């Protein structure tokens, strides 16, 4: 049987309950949004294999339950992650404050030097905003994370912003055939370089917010 992929990336979504982790996952993988999602029990994952000019990249995203007691189960999955998304809800101050706790869990259980990305989700709910954009940026800076504000609902910044943990490895795999388009992220995060790939007849545009360098 032919090998189904060339590069595999395991990414993990963590954060408080109800911040929209599962919605982000569905956007990432299926480009769908359902307002009523059932709560995740334990862990689940979805995969997507993208072929980029002959290189098959399989992205495996692990979704976790947000309630604290499920950490007994979910923290076992930190170890194998290459990138971790820490998600909070911009309309919930509490979920933002808990990011510190999530970061310390990552430090404890995830491999050293794992790439962390802070995500402030539900950016479409501007009128309910409790956490300022600057607060997010500041926290991300403090912990050396990259930061995005996203909305699974309006598809803001989720044109598959997959951050790869080992840029060098990715670069080696993907140096050829990708069009480099600088700073096209709607979040105007200028440090990032977004790779835009046109996947052919479907005209579905895939954006990779590639975080280059640490």
């Amino acid at each position, binding site marked *: 049987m032919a090998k189904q992929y060339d590069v595999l990336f395991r990414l993990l979504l963590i954060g408080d309950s*109800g911040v929209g982790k599962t919605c982000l996952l569905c956007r990432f993988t299926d480009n769908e949004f359902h307002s009523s999602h059932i709560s995740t*029990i*334990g862990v*689940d994952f979805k*995969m997507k294999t993208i072929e980029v000019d002959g290189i098959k990249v399989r992205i495996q995203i692990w979704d976790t339950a947000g*309630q604290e007691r*499920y950490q007994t189960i979910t923290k076992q999955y930190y170890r194998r992650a290459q990138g971790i998304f820490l998600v909070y809800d911009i309309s919930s101050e509490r979920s933002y404050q808990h990011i510190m706790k999530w970061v310390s869990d990552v430090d404890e259980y995830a491999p050293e030097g794992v790439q962390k990305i802070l995500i402030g989700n539900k950016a479409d709910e501007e009128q309910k905003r409790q956490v300022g954009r600057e607060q997010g940026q500041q926290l991300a800076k403090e912990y050396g994370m990259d930061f995005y504000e996203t909305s699974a609902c309006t598809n803001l910044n989720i044109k598959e912003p997959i951050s790869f943990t080992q840029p060098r490895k990715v670069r080696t795999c993907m140096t050829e055939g990708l069009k480099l388009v600088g700073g096209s992220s709607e979040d105007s995060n200028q440090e990032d370089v977004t790779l835009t790939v046109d996947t052919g007849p479907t005209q579905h545009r895939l954006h990779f917010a590639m975080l280059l360098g640490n």
Partner: protein
Amino acid sequence: MQEDPETLLALQRANIVAQYHQACQAGSPQDLSLWKVTNHQGFLQDKQLPGPSPHEAKKHLQETQHANKWIKMLNSRETQLWQVYKGAPPQVRGQVWLRLLNINKVKARNPGKYQEMKEEALVSSQDITQIDLDINRMFHSHTMFWDCYGAASLFHMLSAYSVYNTEVGYCQGMSKIVAILLTFLPEEDAFWALAQLMTDDRHAMHGFLIPGFPKLLRFQAHHEHILDRALPKLKKHIGHGVGPEHLLPFRQGEEQMCTGIYTPKWFLQCFIDRTPFSLTLKLWDAYILDGECMLTAMAYTILRVHRKRLLKLPLEGLREFLQDSLAQPWALEEKVVLRHLRTSMTQLRRMKCDLPSPGGGSLGGSAVRRLPLAQGVILESRDRVLRRAPSMEPASVSSSLSLSHEWINKILKKKNNPKGNWQARLHGCKGPWAPSNTRGLPEELGISAWAGYPTPSWSSLSVPTHC
């Protein structure tokens, strides 16, 4: 001005309580046009449904006649509740559950307790925010819960239980269990049904939902053991181990699924969302009748029935099949699935694998060691206690299905419920049921539960080391 987090939390809490209070005052809107878009199971559809076809009309008529027979049976002395395996009509499901869980007795023993817990919860429950969050994102398409009124009973029940049993409190996943109970039982009965499911002898869901999930770990290990013995090829294909450490990056160019991913929903919620809704209800009938041994048997049944298909699927396909496709209508009729389930139960009993060993056994022990929290050990010991006593009844009920009816009658008629003393203490305690209180329970519970039961029914448990 920025409010401090404590104040914000208190405000949030007050808002949530007020919201459900208003919903209760307002009552349920009587929009009868809704019924035009409601299917047989109470789920709202996108468009108006056509009237029943002649075939469906005939089926409904048969169902009504079937329900009448059940009502007669429930009123007679010869109650053969094991017939839920042949399918209990939805009209009598609530009654059957009431009987099987002995709810009337428990309710009579605790007059006014539910109301008391409900009121206390509004003031002191620590889980209100989480409960509200989960209620707001579930079963919106069901007529029971699409409006605030239906959701209010869900909210009150869950919050009341969170102060009634503070060791469990509220665990995500309970909202679905409660929703299923509320669909067939009035609020107070549903509360006691939940209380029974958590702590009664056959089900003891308590250990599944407390922090550390000791019972889940034990059941997962047991599930692995069953696969090793009965479906070794499939086990090899699915992957070893319950944890991600077994997710090997490359095994002949492929990755592996692991049982730890798909079993939590199966065991913690008894297959809710993982099987088609009508089948889920029938599985719940079987679960309420036979208890936890049904969980191991159904997990085995799913894999056994679909083994050929599963063997052909790669990791992605396995995930999709076990997590999503199983919830779509099966190719098999529900009656056939239930027949398979009974066959599995007999088979596992013969293999002496119908239940995992109690918490202190070899598997339970290893499960405890896997828990990094010291707390887990303590909790596991409590779970073991609850499990040891509980297993008496399920083993006896399920050890021989031909005896089921006789046994259930015995259990139902038994004047002194073996757990009676313990339950009276639990329900009678004035304050919340604190974990420290529970440590004193084990021996008493153990002794009282063992008393008065014939030895043969325990035989399946006397060889735990094999399983």
